């Protein structure tokens, strides 16, 4: 099993999966940097930031950036499956583990976004109905 090699058709799928991992990592990095700049330098944007918002957003940013890191790692591992020979199964296991960690971080990010959403909803309504 250790010397198992995926076929060229399977390799095409792994290459596509590797690209998709990068596709998700890029907006996650942008989102993390954007919100982190908002949370750390609120005066640059002329907004008033309250502690609860700062804490939630700082945790969201950290998990978004960690998810992006694991996605890039998973992308590299999946691309090694295509490039290297003889250790495809062990690389698949490592890639799956990195993907699992990335998905867990994305989940935490989304759950915290949901919390932030609940925090922001009364404000949203106040803006819409002045």
């Amino acid at each position, binding site marked *: *099993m250790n010397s*198992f090699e995926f076929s060229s*058709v*399977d390799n095409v*799928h*792994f290459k*596509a*999966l590797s690209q*998709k*991992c990068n*596709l*998700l990592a*890029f*907006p*996650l990095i*942008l*989102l993390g940097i*954007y*919100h982190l700049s*908002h949370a750390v330098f609120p005066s640059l*944007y*002329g*907004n*008033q*930031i*309250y502690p*609860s*918002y700062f804490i939630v957003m700082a945790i969201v940013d950290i998990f978004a950036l960690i998810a992006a890191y694991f996605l890039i790692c998973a992308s590299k591992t999946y691309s090694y499956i295509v490039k290297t020979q003889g250790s495809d*199964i062990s690389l698949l*296991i490592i890639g*799956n*583990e990195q*993907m*699992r960690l990335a*998905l*867990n971080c*994305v*989940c935490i990010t*989304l*759950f915290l*976004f*949901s919390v*932030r*959403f*609940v*925090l*922001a*909803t009364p*404000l*949203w*309504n106040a*803006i*819409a*109905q002045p």
Partner: protein
Amino acid sequence: MEFSAIQNENFKSLRKASSLAFLAFLIFGLLNIITLAGPSPSYFLKFLCLVLIVSCLAAAMAFKKAGSNFSSIVTTENNDLALLTLANQQLQKALTWASVTVLMILIRSAYFHANFDFVVK
């Protein structure tokens, strides 16, 4: 081809992560329906919200299908490679929709911060 017990454990944990991702995207998508249904400061925000909901729910469904394929790899025998390919394809779809979701969150935040005083207690 049949994966070993250790490899099956790996797929099992990935199935759990996919199920969790399904829940997270579903909850976030459903929460955003409240925004779409309620009053909004602009139509552009409503449009962004609509795209966000569609991408969230599509990602959730793809994660659910990928999870069930990973589960089938563990439970069935002799068909693991074909199931892995299917799971792989569903995971690709899920990641594509997830990237659209994150991009929409980013655009919405930028638009909201640029046009309104965003203050949360």
